[in-house]
């Protein structure tokens, strides 16, 4: 029983690591991506190939997986962000890149194509995940509460005004993209060494969708919100034994409903904090104002 629960928590934490990065990108910088699963896949394959074919140390391979994700993020981001594409065309471009990565993974000899890579070492344990998740959340929190993070938020709020506040729009967005790609890559490496088998068809738009849904539902402009939403998205369907298909139906509907009725998501633009919890308590139990 414990091993089942720890499995669910582990899977949840893997996605938390990727989603925190996406939260910075979409939630704090206001850019929409349809292909973040591609960075996840790159991290997974890079880390797996290094440990499987070249016997690298797990932690080094993991770091390289993250770095690979970040590097590809930089390569993709530089031309597309420099061109100041409209947000919707930027999203379509990310879709295209996701497509290109998938084609690449299915056709490079080293990735063994659509058959996938089996037999990866099982290195990802719950303590490892908790430490990595903690570090990533801590980095993200520090970033947001620094001048670099605030620049991203300004870009999201009003990029015209942000420019007039001395913010370099291109660099701010690129930084955000690279950070989120790094987090996704890191999560991918952990994923590979958890399931011990990866193939291109595992990294589909299902994964990208779930991550985006968690950011939106958790609340754009918050880190704790997406973390909580991810854990709920992974945990509850597991508990209820809901099939993947219906999960996606629910995610889609949830995205629309949130946009219409509660666009600020669960946490709004705030973080989970003691004050917030006390406020809820007062409102729910005492009927007073927060």
């Amino acid at each position, binding site marked *: 029983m414990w091993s089942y629960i720890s499995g669910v928590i582990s899977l949840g934490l893997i996605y938390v690591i990727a989603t925190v990065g996406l939260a910075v990108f*979409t939630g704090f910088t*206001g850019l*929409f991506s*349809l292909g973040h699963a591609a960075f996840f896949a790159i991290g997974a394959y890079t880390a797996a190939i290094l440990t499987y074919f070249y016997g690298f140390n797990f932690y080094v391979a993991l770091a390289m997986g993250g770095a690979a994700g970040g590097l590809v993020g930089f390569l993709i981001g530089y*031309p*597309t962000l*420099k*061109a100041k*594409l*409209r*947000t*919707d*065309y930027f*999203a*379509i*471009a990310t*879709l*295209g*890149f996701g*497509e*290109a990565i998938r*084609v690449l993974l299915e*056709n490079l000899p080293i990735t063994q194509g659509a058959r996938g890579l089996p037999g990866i070492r099982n290195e990802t344990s719950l303590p490892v995940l908790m430490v990595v998740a903690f570090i990533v959340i801590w980095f993200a929190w520090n970033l947001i509460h620094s001048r670099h993070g605030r620049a991203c938020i300004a870009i999201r709020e*009003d*990029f*015209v005004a942000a420019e007039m506040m001395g913010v370099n729009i291109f660099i701010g967005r690129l930084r955000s993209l690279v950070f989120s790609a790094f987090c996704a890559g890191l999560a991918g490496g952990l994923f590979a060494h958890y399931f011990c088998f990866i193939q291109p068809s595992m990294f589909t738009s299902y994964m990208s*969708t779930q991550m*985006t849904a968690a950011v*939106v539902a958790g609340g754009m402009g918050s880190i704790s919100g997406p973390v909580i939403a991810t854990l709920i998205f992974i945990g509850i369907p597991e508990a209820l034994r809901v*099939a993947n*298909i*219906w999960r*996606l*139906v629910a*995610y*889609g*509907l*949830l*995205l*629309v409903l949130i*946009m*219409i009725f509660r*666009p600020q998501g669960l946490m709004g633009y705030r973080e989970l904090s003691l004050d917030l919890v006390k406020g809820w308590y007062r409102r729910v139990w005492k009927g007073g104002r927060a």
Partner: protein
Amino acid sequence: MFVQTLLTGLAIGGIYALMAVGYSLVFSILNFSNFAYGSIIMLGAYISYFSMVKLGLPIGVALALSILGAALLCYLNERLAYAPLRKRRASSLFFMISAMGTAIFLENLVYAIVGAHFYAFPEVFTKRNITFHGVSIGVLDVFAIAFSFAAIYALHYFLQKSRTGIAIRAASYDIQVCSLNGVNDKHLIGLVFCLAGGLAGISGTFLGMKYIVYPTMGWITNKAYIAAVIGGLGSLPGAVVGGILLGVTETFVSAYVSSVVRDVFSFSLLVLLLMVMPTGLFGRFLEEKV
């Protein structure tokens, strides 16, 4: 071989043109990429398929039902998922999330309810090819091209000659001024979505007949976005030209290079164009609404 490839390219180009026009109609009025358009196309295909197979209706009636059904669904999509956001003057990111959510919801609903089977249309046009001078083209393709162009011409006539059509063209320049001149912009927007939906019904049906019917076939609308960019964002004639050009060049890449690379080529073309020549061939480059 060259002429054959050209003909094949024209056939698919005609369908791309149809999708691109439907997409551009909405885009030119609202400056918004309707990411859910693909799922409307998919539903159009399913409607005509099931009309023929389950209800035994002839192709003409099935097509008509598909047009009406898709128009209604597209209209509902607008009323339920986008209109509330417009009233709130939400930013483009929110529209995109809502559109994505709708697409994911509809696709997976079909997956969950109807199933993941691939459905092949019954033979309407015999598999006979018309052959002349050593090149052949399927009877279906001839019909598809003819019908697509007929539909586009009908739309063009409507936009040029009817009062409502002129109102739509005026709205594509500035919908606010239009409403100040007495045009009911809510009705206008609803009508535009109905028209786009009708076109989606036709393209969905022909796509289904030419290839197969399956829940994620809607992703082909990515080609519509690319075609719209080639032809020039905001231009309907541009969408037609862009669609044909894309269909032809894609088919040439597929025939002379490799079919695997085809989609990567199309997306790369998109990114390149957006960086180098964002106005496309005929377009007014529309600034993103800030």
